[in-house]
């Protein structure tokens, strides 16, 4: 439309210039005749007529220019609108497959490995869609391979720790047998057997811990919680650790808030957590240190805490403290007999009980490991014991 308008305008302009040219020529001829003195009246009229005619032509062409300008403007607007419509149609046709891609990418990122898109639309979006599906296929395949590897790993750890138990039973059993006859052994032999026994027990702990972690990873670490009294568990754990803390001249105290409610827990597992925490407190604290076990009620939970006045934990290690094979300073690790798995397992176990575990420590200011367990519904036992203090 604008093109037609411009074309017509050029044509009109040409016609106008031709007409003006003709008019000047006619006038010139009339003026020549006037100068020669022939036909002066008609010649004068012709000159005047031509001047008027050019005046009319100029009016005509300016009106035409205005019309053409309007026509061109209208054409441009119409063209732009058309282009806009075309463009938005184009965008719409790209947008649907793109939105689908965005949705599918979101699903994939959220772990839905079956997320795919329908390949279609413009060739670019179709290519993108096909590439996305291909990537998702590969991810799905890799994920399933990883799952399978994880299962194999768990199976391996379960089987290995199971198979290792029989020979370990023999080594441990015969070493114990030797110790039953320690009177007939030299002191050097007794020391030797004790080293064997220590290492056997360490292996047993390691096996048990590995097994627990493998079960935990495989989602097969199960507990059977029941309403459980806290005090006897703490008593028991403290009694288990007494010999070791006494050997290190460490003070081990137990303080239980009176009227503590029952907790919803599996007794053996809580004892295991306590022994883990107490073993750490004992092994990472120097000779003569104080270790305190406390229990108190906090709302609908019972908090059990193991506090020591040992060297504390640097901040850089605190955030990884519950990860497996994380241990305190290498300097200390030399003499620490832990497996590096105790805290990781304790965390799994506490969480399995629906509880939480936390650490609070400052270098040089000792450490407190505490965990909370949900209180069991029902009446609290009447006999809470206060400040049961025992040391050395």
């Amino acid at each position: 439309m604008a093109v037609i308008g411009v074309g017509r305008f050029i044509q009109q302009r040409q016609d106008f210039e031709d007409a003006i040219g003709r008019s000047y020529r006619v006038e010139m001829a009339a003026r020549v005749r006037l100068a020669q003195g022939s036909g002066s009246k008609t010649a004068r009229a012709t000159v005047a007529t031509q001047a008027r005619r050019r005046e009319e032509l100029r009016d005509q062409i300016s009106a035409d220019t205005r019309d053409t300008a309007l026509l061109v403007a209208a054409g441009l607007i119409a063209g732009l609108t058309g282009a806009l419509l075309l463009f938005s149609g184009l965008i719409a046709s790209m947008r649907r497959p793109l939105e689908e891609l965005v949705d599918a990418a979101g699903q994939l990122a959220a772990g839905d490995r079956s997320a795919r898109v329908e390949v279609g639309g413009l060739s670019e979006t179709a290519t993108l869609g096909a590439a996305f599906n291909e990537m998702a296929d590969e991810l799905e395949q890799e994920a399933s391979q990883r799952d399978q590897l994880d299962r194999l790993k768990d199976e391996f750890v379960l089987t290995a720790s199971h198979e290792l138990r029989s020979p370990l039973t023999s080594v441990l059993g015969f070493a114990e047998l030797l110790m039953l006859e320690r009177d007939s052994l030299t002191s050097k032999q007794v020391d030797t057997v004790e080293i064997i026994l220590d290492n056997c027990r360490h292996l047993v702990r390691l096996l048990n811990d590995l097994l627990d972690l493998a079960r935990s990873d495989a989602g097969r670490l199960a507990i059977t919680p029941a309403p459980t009294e806290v005090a006897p568990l703490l008593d028991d754990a403290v009694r288990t650790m007494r010999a070791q803390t006494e050997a290190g001249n460490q003070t081990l105290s137990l303080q239980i808030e009176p009227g503590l409610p029952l907790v919803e827990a599996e007794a053996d597992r809580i004892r295991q957590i306590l022994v883990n925490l107490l073993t750490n407190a004992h092994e990472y604290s120097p000779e003569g240190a104080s270790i305190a076990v406390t229990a108190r009620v906090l709302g609908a939970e019972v908090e059990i805490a193991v506090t020591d006045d040992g060297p504390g934990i640097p901040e850089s290690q605190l955030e990884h403290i519950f990860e497996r094979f994380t241990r305190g300073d290498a300097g200390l690790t030399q003499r620490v007999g832990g497996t590096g798995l105790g805290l990781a397992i304790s965390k799994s176990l506490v969480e399995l009980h629906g509880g939480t575990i936390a650490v609070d420590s400052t270098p040089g200011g000792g450490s407190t490991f505490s965990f909370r367990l949900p209180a069991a519904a029902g009446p609290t036992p009447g006999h809470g014991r206060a400040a049961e203090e025992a040391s050395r």
Partner: protein
Amino acid sequence: MTLVLVADDSETILLLMRTRLELAGYEVETAADGQEVTERLRNGGPLPDLLLLDAMMPRKSGIDALRELRAEGIETPALIVSAHQDATDADAPSDLEVSGFVTKPIDFDRLLESIAELTRD
């Protein structure tokens, strides 16, 4: 004298068990698997006061042997030895009368306590 029949597919474990139990004053007989246990009792071997059976053995497991013996009306108390760390009474097949579980590595103080309790007249 109290007779304990121990079954395990490991000769070393059998030797260990025999030594520890004999030291504690028990008479001990051993078998290499569940098959041997059932055959011996069927062929008129002396009826033990206690069975100490490994849960997993080739040919016949301790669990299967015990199931057969119970079916034949032999009510001898039985302890099942398991390499499963957390074997508990809850693991026992419900149709089987098991006196208890012993886990490997064996805590002999505890085992001897259990045996004493189960064989007390």
